[in-house]
């Protein structure tokens, strides 16, 4: 059980991660293990990270996103950040010079919208 971590299967091999305010990104090692482990177990190929609730992304949060994206890349899972808020994009564009190691999209593609929670994957 990890507080603030909601993982839902969408489609065949994609998952949606909706972090809540309770998610403690300082507990990085534990979070990375849990997320990568769960996705690997479910044979996921893509993780959509929902940033709708993140009004501001600072360097600490960006480092967390990068660490997660790199870890998932190591287990062959693409990470796509969705619903990035204008304020967060503006803040990020100030200090991110190159291309981030995660992908970005406005939303989850339409063909993934048969969302259903997977038993045991809800971690809060």
């Amino acid at each position, binding site marked *: 059980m990890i507080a603030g971590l909601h993982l839902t299967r969408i489609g065949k091999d994609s998952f949606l991660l909706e972090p809540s305010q309770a998610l403690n990104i300082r507990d990085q090692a534990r979070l990375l293990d849990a997320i990568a482990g769960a996705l690997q177990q479910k044979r996921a190929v893509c993780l959509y990270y929902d940033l709708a609730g993140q009004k501001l992304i600072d360097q600490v949060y960006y480092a967390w996103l990068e660490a997660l994206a790199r870890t998932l890349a190591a287990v062959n899972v693409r990470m796509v950040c969705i619903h990035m808020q204008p304020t*967060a994009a503006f803040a990020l564009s100030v200090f991110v010079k190159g291309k981030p190691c995660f992908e970005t999209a406005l939303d989850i593609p339409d063909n993934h919208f048969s969302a259903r929670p997977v038993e045991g994957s809800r971690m809060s």
Partner: protein
Amino acid sequence: MNQKLSEKLSALFNLEVGSISTLLEEPGRLHFGRDGLMDEEEIVDLSAEFLNLMAGLLGAKNPKDRNCPEFHALEIFFSALAQKVLIRGGKVEEVVRYAQLMQYTLIEALEQDSGIAFTESRSVLLYFNSLFNELIMEVFRTYLAERERVLEAQEAELRETSTPITEIWDGVLTLPIIGTLDSSRTMLVMEALLSRVAKDHAEVVVMDLTGVQNIDSQVSHHLIQIVRAVQLMGSNAIITGIQPEIARALISLNIDFTGITTRASLSDGLKEAFRQMDIHVSHKAS
């Protein structure tokens, strides 16, 4: 001396408010009535209110104190008057001339009513001069604040109309930028554009710089920042119409164009946007 004077004037105002008020209506008629800025009823109310406030000040503990509430009330009266006249299309000169005429009319009316030769009293004239100078200053302060507000509103409107963000196709936003880009305008463009991307779920943004003649180091960095922010939100940004001088300036400023799509013209940019979205636009088969 001043204390005595205030008591006399205050007592006089308490007794003769009605008759003096009528005399004070003339400046209002002259400056606001002729041009139709105020109707007769308003002019009567105006002079009555002025007289009440003036009586309050002259009857105050220290009528020379510029921090007393009675003086502040007079300042507010003239500020509101200036605002009213300006909003109705009058000129600030009208309010200033009204205040000056009010000063002379007031002294004469007091003299006429009380039989005391105020116009020959240096201290009384000095007192009213200094008082009305302060009130005229307040009129100018109001005028300047009003002008500034109007200019700011016009500037904002101009900025908005000079950076029209249009959804030219479902999911395609175009932003033609015309004129000189400075840092504050670039930031406004960025704010407006990112909000529109989120609101319209725009997949591609085409920024056309054909109308931009000058660009400096800071602004070019801001432009790249806009493109990066759009990309971070999950959209694609295409920059079109970069003039040769702008291109040269960007290169000499070592601006990194990696991962940024550019096209020669807005039309090419739109074609690229359609290509990215897998949209095919063709002539109707005859």
